């Protein structure tokens, strides 16, 4: 029996694409049920399959070949979109790896004469596609995390003016060195810009104070003092007060108040006293 003429992989895929695509979509849709519409999935997969066939027809062997540039670009944008929409890694990877189901369907087909070497190439290619997709997915996720961290840094440090000569920073969330540095610089700069002599750091929204956070707070207070402003810490919750004492952190002569309101009153009182003395001097 003469060996059947071996059809090139690309034309074979092109001929049976209906069947391959059907098996692929079946598997992928089962995994992604409800996350994405079938039409959308079909459109995506048709694009991928078209680009894959085109790449194979152009003689591409492995994913890094220039013939697959289009395919890589397409998959990259698909998995980045998945990452942004909040798909799980599994869901993203399966939608590509399910292409194998399509290929297995091809294998079961008696009419198709697939050279084992060709099939191996194709399977390897699909594996590479899976890896590539996952890598892009992870990169996209990481960039989202980095963006959010940056946004958090901007969002979390407003310096507000409470009264003439009194500014406050309401701290919310966990304090780390990077954040404290930003808060410190912003607060000190605001003191200079507004000529305020009182700063209030409100830590009502800080969930926990450990030695490091306390150290950062103390540094801020000392720096403000060096510049000639008085700094009050307010909003220390009972549990935090207990922690501070248990840890043996010395707040020294730093003024602490229970609430922001108390701190404001204290600041105004000091300011008033000073103004009264001044007006007595200038001879009202």
């Amino acid at each position: 029996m003469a060996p059947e003429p071996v059809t090139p992989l690309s034309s074979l895929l092109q001929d049976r694409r209906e069947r391959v695509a059907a098996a692929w979509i079946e598997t992928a849709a089962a995994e992604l049920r409800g996350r994405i519409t079938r039409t959308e999935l079909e459109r995506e997969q048709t694009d991928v399959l078209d680009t894959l066939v085109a790449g194979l027809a152009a003689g591409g062997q492995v994913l890094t070949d220039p013939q697959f540039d289009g395919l890589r670009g397409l998959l990259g944008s698909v998995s980045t979109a998945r990452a942004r929409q909040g798909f799980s890694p599994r869901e993203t990877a399966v939608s590509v790896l399910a292409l194998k189901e399509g290929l297995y369907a091809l294998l079961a087909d008696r009419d198709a004469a697939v050279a084992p070497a060709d099939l191996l190439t194709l399977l390897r290619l699909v594996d590479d596609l899976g890896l590539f997709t996952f890598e892009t997915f992870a990169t996209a996720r990481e960039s989202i995390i980095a963006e959010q961290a940056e946004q958090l840094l901007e969002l979390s440090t407003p310096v507000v003016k409470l009264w003439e000569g009194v500014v406050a920073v309401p701290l919310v969330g966990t304090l780390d060195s990077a954040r404290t540095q930003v808060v410190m610089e912003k607060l000190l700069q605001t003191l200079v810009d507004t000529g305020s002599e009182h700063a209030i750091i409100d830590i009502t929204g800080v969930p926990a104070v450990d030695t490091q956070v306390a150290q950062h707070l103390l540094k801020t207070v000392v720096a403000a003092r060096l510049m000639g402003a008085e700094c009050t810490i307010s909003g220390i919750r009972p549990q935090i007060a207990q922690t501070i004492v248990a840890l043996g952190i010395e707040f020294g002569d730093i003024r602490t108040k229970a609430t922001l309101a108390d701190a404001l009153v204290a600041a105004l009182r000091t300011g008033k006293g000073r103004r009264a003395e001044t007006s007595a001097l200038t001879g009202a």
Partner: protein
Amino acid sequence: MESVPILKIGRTLLVSIQVDLQDHTALQLQEDLADRITSTGARGVLIDISGLEIVDSFIGRMLASIASISRVLDATTVVVGMRPAVAITMVELGLSLGGVRTALDVEKGLRLLDVEEDDAEHLLLDPDGTEAE
């Protein structure tokens, strides 16, 4: 050799440091100030460092020792106009300028000195606080 000018306003000496100090200029300033305090009988020393971008441990120590010298000569030292970046660096270096009073700018520093002066003189000369000067 360049030196830092010392201005006299009332009973206060004003030193405005505009450029980064060389070590010997700093020492010279320290001596000059001590002389001027005794010769003028000044009660307050105001050091404006708003022009300084770098305060190293040497300058930090100089400020502290000027404060100590003035205290011995019965004058109060106020350091004014420290930049935020300088304040942060000094805290990181562990220099807290203990015993030195600070204010945001020259105006607030002068007010701080006036108030103290005022307190002392009121107690002695004008317990009722009615006199203007």
